[in-house]
């Protein structure tokens, strides 16, 4: 598992490629498929402000427990990720997700099902 908490400059992520709320967007595939690493990077970018002490944020980080983020902020982050990766993650699915890895896999699964 790469250490993703080092603040290295982000590569281009799907987040920057989406044409939001444009009717055309629905007919276009994302210019590039989001890789698992892209998704993890984007999640870590959102979680960075909630890092507890020096402990890096990694795939196994338990979002609600190992970080200083509260449940409302988690839901708000999910809303941002939904738009970055053009998927919707129902609240009951979010409730089952605990780690960064699980969140990334959920996003990738939902993208694959589209």
């Amino acid at each position, binding site marked *: 598992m790469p250490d993703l908490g080092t603040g290295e400059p982000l590569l281009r992520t799907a987040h920057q490629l989406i044409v*939001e*709320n444009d009717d055309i967007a*629905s007919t276009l595939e994302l210019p590039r498929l989001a890789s698992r690493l892209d998704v993890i990077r984007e999640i870590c970018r959102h979680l960075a402000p909630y890092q507890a002490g020096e402990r890096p944020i990694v795939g196994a980080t338990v979002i609600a427990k190992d970080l200083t983020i*509260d*449940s*409302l*902020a988690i*839901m*708000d982050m999910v*809303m941002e990720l*939904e*738009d970055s990766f*053009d*998927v*919707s*993650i*129902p*609240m*009951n699915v979010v409730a089952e997700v605990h780690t960064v890895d699980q969140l990334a896999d959920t996003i990738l699964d939902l993208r694959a099902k*589209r």
Partner: protein
Amino acid sequence: MGLFDRHAGLLEAYRDVRTTGADPFQIRMERVLSPTEAIINGRKMLLVGTNNYFGLTFDPSCMEAAIEAIRAEGTGTTGSRIANGSYSEHVLLEQEIAEFYGKKHCMVFTTGYQANLGVISTLVGQGDHLLIDADSHASIYDACKMTQAEVVRFKHNDPSSLESRLRRLGDKPGNRLVILEGIYSMLGDSAPLREFVDVCKKYGAYVLVDEAHSLGALGETGRGLCESTGVLDDCHFIVGTFSKTLGAIGGYCVSNDPDFDILRVTVRSYMFTASLPPSIVASVRQALRVVKARPELRTQLWDNVATLYDGLAAQGFKLGPEHGPVVGVHLPDRMTAVGFWRAMLDAGIYVNVAVPPATPNGVSLLRCSVCAVHTREQLEHMIEVMTGIGRQLGVISGTPKLRVVAGSR
């Protein structure tokens, strides 16, 4: 693990709040004197945090109606609407609310909380899709926990955020139900309802609007945001409460759907709780007549909103985005908010303090709610007090700003 261990985090935050010497969540109204004044801690206080938008809690005609009803029919119904708790007056009240909205059906609930909880969780089920505004009231969030439908949040007051979520559903089967509020309870802002309705129409979604804080306040005849934005016919369900503008307690839902009445035997928060007592039904029926007969209360309310909002804005306070009967004052953090609240109490003014996790985006707020019967002097006094405290706490600078904000009538 002890039963209360899971609340350790909250307990700590709550302790923080209480160390200031007064507990904002355990304020005791020793005696309520009028819609705008009460005795708290042995002192007369100005009330600017009671959701009593038209001041009808002490309206003589509403009080008389309630007293008469108690004499005629007793203090309570001791039963639910589907058993012994449906009196002629409950049915008349339902007819009057339906008529007020020009809708065919109305169901009355014992609280607005139960109306949202029961109606929303029952309208959608397995395989359906419920889309809610991120800043929705707790009663809406609780309904989400009770339904089998898939629930997705969209960004607050952002029709394009709703649209991308409806678009993503594509041709998935299942009904789509979108939940909006007329006026949001923390910052007093209104939904861009017409734009939302256009999106819902495009994707064939049903619309439910909670007019809890907008009943009476918005619209030519006080029917709320649905009326003021001209989309009454496009809103499939309107929910509201008797606990704010109408000065009592209770909730309702109106609709034109021909099968609406099936909810009477499916919504559990309607079926398994006692119905409203006769006195409440009577005072609410009268309050609705007052709302219809006295449109000047609406004018007074918005004049008062302008006085308070513009006065605070001119002093440099950061407020909610637009004029509304709720004026939310942003403060930098929880402790400043509680300190500010406490200083106001010391100065004889009661407002609400709202801190995370009860607020959107983790903001800390003083939540003021304006009443049509506040006097200009009361509100100007409040602005003066808040300006003084704001400067002492370093929340605002010493020099007032000029700022003009559009009204939202």
